[in-house]
């Protein structure tokens, strides 16, 4: 019998080796034949051994799916199938019982998985001394990078355009003033939000304009109406605004007070920093450092990988300002239609043309839809012969410059939306941006991104599989959304993201529940998904209070000198070495087991951290060295218990079983308390606290697995497989 087993193992090893060789030699006939023969031998042995049959079937399934995954180039599928193959292959080993083999196979599979996950990292940290096959390099797209203190990185300086935040605040005041004045004139009841009709009535009496960044000017038709600026009005605004009469006799000018202005500035910078922090947090465990300097935000990011960087920069820079405004199709003729704009007057070679469309025009008094009106708009076709090589952004710049020459009333503005066309012969149908068009809308935002509580990605099953981002509003936002859509049935509604109109759908009916979507337009599926992810991230982290512009970018070196890094690494090695030697000295063979468990733990931790592209900083390395000391605790507890049981005169086998059983409660309680801390810090902490918590969680789980689960296998093998009479735990009993 044993000779048969040896033959089976030989044929198994041979099969695996020859299969690898045949893959390596691109299916050369000889190894393929050999592998087939070996496999047949293995299977015929397995079939005669009922206990091994399941394992063989599982191996065959795993190998089959691995081949499929390899064919479709699904790397992680291939890895998982391969690991399953290894796992089930352990079932064939002629040692111990089925449960043990199952567990041992699992450990082996985890080990191999860890090796694959760590490979690029090891290659990275050894500066290429450990070779990395191109096949794996192209597919394992994560690795631990050295942090700012060890390797350095890139330093980005952005300037917050605080003027924009001030302008924003001023608009807010202007809106409040309109509301207050409409109430004083008796157009508005004082309850709820002032409506557009009430505003146009107010426009007859007083004109609220915003000529400069921090200025609001009221121009009264009738100077006597200045009395409307009563105590109530003053109480509401004069705390933060200075009032002057003039410059014209009918004017009253308000200016944001200097101290309020500087508060707005400071707050805008602080908020921008917080938002950027949140965005970087969502991009993995990048130990980035973010500081402020006057109106600048300095971001230091470890590593200098070009692709990573562009991604970070793109995500940081998105203002993510979301606004919802009403489209005024009926009024568009006044600006984009004749006589204001005649098609013949348009510059011929700029690509701008006048278009009309049938546009919805709301409902009449009894709730029936009105006849569509003729809406006018201008359309820019990009890349006319004169500008053959322009980008869509440059094209938009030209369009905006042209649109600035139009005379648009104060309470209206011109929005720009991308025009796309389907690309022929693509499946599913793809769209390409070909130009821009105008959307004539009211400048008052009905709803802003401040009311968004969450964003998530979805894919439209009908509309060419477009990806979209679903927005959820807060209860207050949902109420406002319902109110606005209810009052504007059968009108168009523009969703504006960072000053560009994303879409302008028609409101069919009142929309409750507080959900809205932003659809990704042009580009292939992959690009859409990428854009959708980015938008999700920035919307979740909240909008920047004002746009930021890059002002400086430089590559920086490590903040720790080479000498201190070298010394620290020396410290880490000596420390771990001492611990390992000490354990062997104290526990003998059991100490060796504990050491292996600790090293395995270390490797697993690094592998998990690598999958999250965590940065490796010196305090991080120090933390790992400490984990090493702590994870030894599990084995110390177990070994001490085994010693106690042996001392009490138990047999070796009983001592191991009871040692593990009795050590379990204290191990699990200790681990769970630390795990709770880790989970909560990860949930509620930010920045470095979050990163620390994550490392802690990974460390705890790995230590439980390697220290308890894996070492048990060795002890079981000793007492049940090898049937030792004496356990080597460093003391004689």
């Amino acid at each position: 019998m044993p000779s048969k087993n040896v033959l089976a193992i030989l044929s198994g090893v041979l099969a695996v080796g020859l299969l690898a060789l045949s893959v390596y030699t691109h299916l050369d006939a000889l190894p393929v034949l050999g592998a087939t023969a070996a496999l047949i031998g293995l299977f015929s042995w397995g079939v005669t051994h009922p206990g091994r049959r399941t394992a063989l079937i599982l191996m065959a399934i795993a190998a089959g799916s691995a081949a499929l995954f390899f064919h479709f180039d699904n790397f992680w599928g291939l890895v998982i199938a391969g690991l399953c193959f290894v796992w089930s292959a352990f079932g064939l080993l002629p040692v111990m019982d089925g449960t043990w083999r199952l567990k041992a196979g699992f450990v082996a599979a985890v080990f191999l998985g860890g090796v694959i996950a760590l490979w690029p990292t090891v290659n990275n940290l050894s500066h290429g001394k450990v070779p990395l096959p191109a096949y794996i390099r192209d597919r394992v797209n994560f690795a631990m990078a050295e942090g700012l203190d060890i390797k350095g990185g890139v330093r980005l300086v952005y300037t917050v355009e605080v003027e924009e935040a001030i302008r924003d605040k001023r608009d807010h005041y202007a809106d409040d003033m309109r509301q207050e004045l409409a109430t004083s004139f008796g157009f508005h009841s004082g309850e709820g939000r002032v409506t557009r009709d009430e505003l146009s009535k107010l426009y007859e009496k007083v004109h609220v304009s915003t000529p400069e960044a921090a200025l609001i000017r009221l121009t009264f038709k009738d100077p006597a109406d200045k009395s409307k600026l009563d105590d109530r009005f003053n109480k509401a605004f004069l705390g933060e605004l200075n009032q002057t009469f003039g410059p014209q006799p009918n004017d009253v000018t308000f200016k944001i007070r200097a101290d309020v202005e500087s508060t707005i500035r400071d707050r805008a910078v602080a908020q921008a920093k917080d938002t950027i922090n949140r965005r970087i947090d969502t991009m993995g465990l990048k130990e980035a450092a973010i500081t402020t300097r006057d109106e600048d935000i300095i971001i230091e990011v470890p590593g200098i990988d070009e692709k990573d960087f562009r991604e970070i920069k793109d995500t940081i820079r998105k203002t993510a300002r979301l606004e919802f405004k009403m489209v005024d199709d009926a009024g568009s003729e006044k600006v984009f239609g004749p006589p204001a704009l005649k098609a013949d007057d348009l510059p011929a070679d700029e690509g701008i043309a006048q278009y009309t469309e049938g546009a919805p025009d709301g409902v009449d008094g009894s709730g029936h839809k009105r006849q569509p009106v003729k809406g006018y708009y201008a359309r820019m076709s990009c890349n006319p012969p004169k500008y053959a090589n322009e980008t869509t952004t440059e094209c938009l710049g030209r369009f905006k410059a042209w649109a600035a020459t139009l005379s648009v009333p104060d309470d209206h503005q011109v929005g720009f939306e991308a025009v796309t066309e389907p690309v022929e012969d693509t499946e599913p149908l793809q769209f390409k941006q070909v130009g821009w068009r105008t959307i004539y809308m009211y400048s008052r935002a009905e709803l802003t991104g401040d009311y968004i509580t969450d964003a998530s990605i979805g894919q439209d099953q009908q509309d060419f599989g477009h990806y979209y981002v679903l927005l959820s509003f807060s209860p207050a936002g949902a109420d406002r959304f319902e109110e606005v859509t209810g009052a504007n049935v059968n009108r168009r509604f523009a969703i504006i993201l960072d000053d560009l109109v994303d879409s302008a759908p028609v409101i069919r009916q009142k929309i409750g529940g507080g959900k809205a979507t932003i659809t990704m337009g042009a580009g292939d599926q992959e690009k859409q998904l990428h854009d959708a992810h980015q938008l999700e991230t920035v919307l979740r982290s909240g909008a920047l209070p004002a746009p930021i512009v890059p002002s400086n970018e430089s590559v920086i070196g490590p903040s720790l000198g080479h000498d201190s890094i070298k010394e620290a690494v020396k410290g880490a090695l000596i420390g771990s070495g001492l611990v390992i030697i000490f354990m062997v000295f104290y526990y003998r063979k059991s100490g060796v087991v504990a050491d292996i468990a600790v090293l395995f733990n270390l490797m697993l931790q690094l592998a998990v951290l690598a999958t999250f592209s965590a940065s490796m900083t010196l305090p991080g390395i120090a933390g790992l060295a400490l984990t090493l000391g702590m994870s030894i605790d599990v084995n110390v507890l177990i070994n001490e218990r085994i010693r106690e049981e042996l001392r009490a005169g138990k047999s070796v086998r009983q001592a191991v079983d009871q040692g593990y059983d009795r050590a379990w409660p204290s191990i699990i309680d200790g681990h769970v308390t630390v795990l709770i801390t880790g989970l909560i810090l990860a949930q509620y902490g930010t920045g470095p606290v979050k990163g620390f918590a994550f490392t802690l969680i990974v460390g705890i789980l790995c230590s439980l697995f390697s220290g308890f689960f894996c070492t048990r296998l060795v002890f079981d093998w000793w007492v049940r497989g090898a049937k030792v009479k004496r356990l080597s735990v460093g003391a004689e009993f």
Partner: protein
Amino acid sequence: MEFFKPGRVFDFMGQRAFWIPLSFILVIASTLFAFWPLPNVWPYGPNYGTDFKGGTEVEIAFLAPVDASGVRKAVEQAGFQTPDVVQVVDPNNAYHFLIRVQDVSAITDQEKDALRVALCYVEAPGAPLDDATKCPANAKASEVKFSAGGDKISTRYDTEPDLEKIKDQVRSVPGISLRASANNPTILNPRDHRVEIQLVSKGDQLMDKLQASLGKNVVPDKALRVEWVGPKAGKQLRDSARNAVAIAVVFIMLYLAFRFDLRFAPGVIVACIHDAMVVIGAFIVLHREITLSTIAAVLTVVGYSMNDTVVVYDRIRENLGKHRGKTFAHIINLSVSETLSRTILTSGATMLSVLAFFVYGTGVIKDFMLALVVGIVAGTYSSIYVAAPLTEWIDKKMAKRADMKKRLNAPARAT
């Protein structure tokens, strides 16, 4: 190999009369140092690093080859603790460095008050503002603001300001010196007559000292840029960390109350607070800088301490079931003695790895390891002399209350 003869019981609780008051004193002293530093009574206070307080950032293009560690050493010799020294890759300047040193405020509150008076912004006793010779309209500030780093004053005037007069006003305040520069003070914004006055800052002092130690042929006369930078860890981090810790405390207590019983829950938390405070106290007494790494170290210590305490608790729970009728103090002695060799092994092993780092580490690492060394000692100690006695005390209180209830109920039942 064995450390102790098995079966020996040490009388740990017999010495608690000495250790518990010591713990109390340590924690109270640390808390006082950390939250209510009294500079006049007590020379110690928390020394927050640039991560928390911000600092001065100086960008220098050195004239001759220097390396990061050399610059760091020179900066440290100039009296700045744990500076950030980072080389900037710059094609124009091969030795372009960025140095961030701890704050900073060059101006005290008294000096600020004196400056406000000198700039005719507030009235001083006996010197009315409408004194036209001292405070003419073109040197009478309508607003005075100090930059966070104390190196700039920005003022506003109602009319075109007289810069020479302002210069004299600033110079008249003792202890304040203007930075030597061609246009200082300067009008920032002619529209609202905003003036910026630059003072000698920590950055300038740093430049002077660097020049003195590294030599004029290495250190240029002027830095490329000297600016105050804000802290890395702001309010957001502090608030989120505080909330997270509070929630974690609640959940851990719930878990322990569920797994052990109510008597055990407060002990772990108090032991953790004890250890965290001892570490912070050690940092304060040793004048080490408290940085983000320190916070990570304190969190690590808390995790370690928690695990250690739970192991001792587990033994107490087991022995409570085994040895009925024994006093709680005896049970503690027994349990601690039984787990003693494990405690020494684990903390010894951890300590070994940390100590090696501590010996070889420099700067930030040394500080990080210092926190861990102190924390491991405290964490091991606190399981025995903080968590266990507290549990015993709570047990006594609860037993007494149960006793009282019994006695109150007994006569009622008799009748």
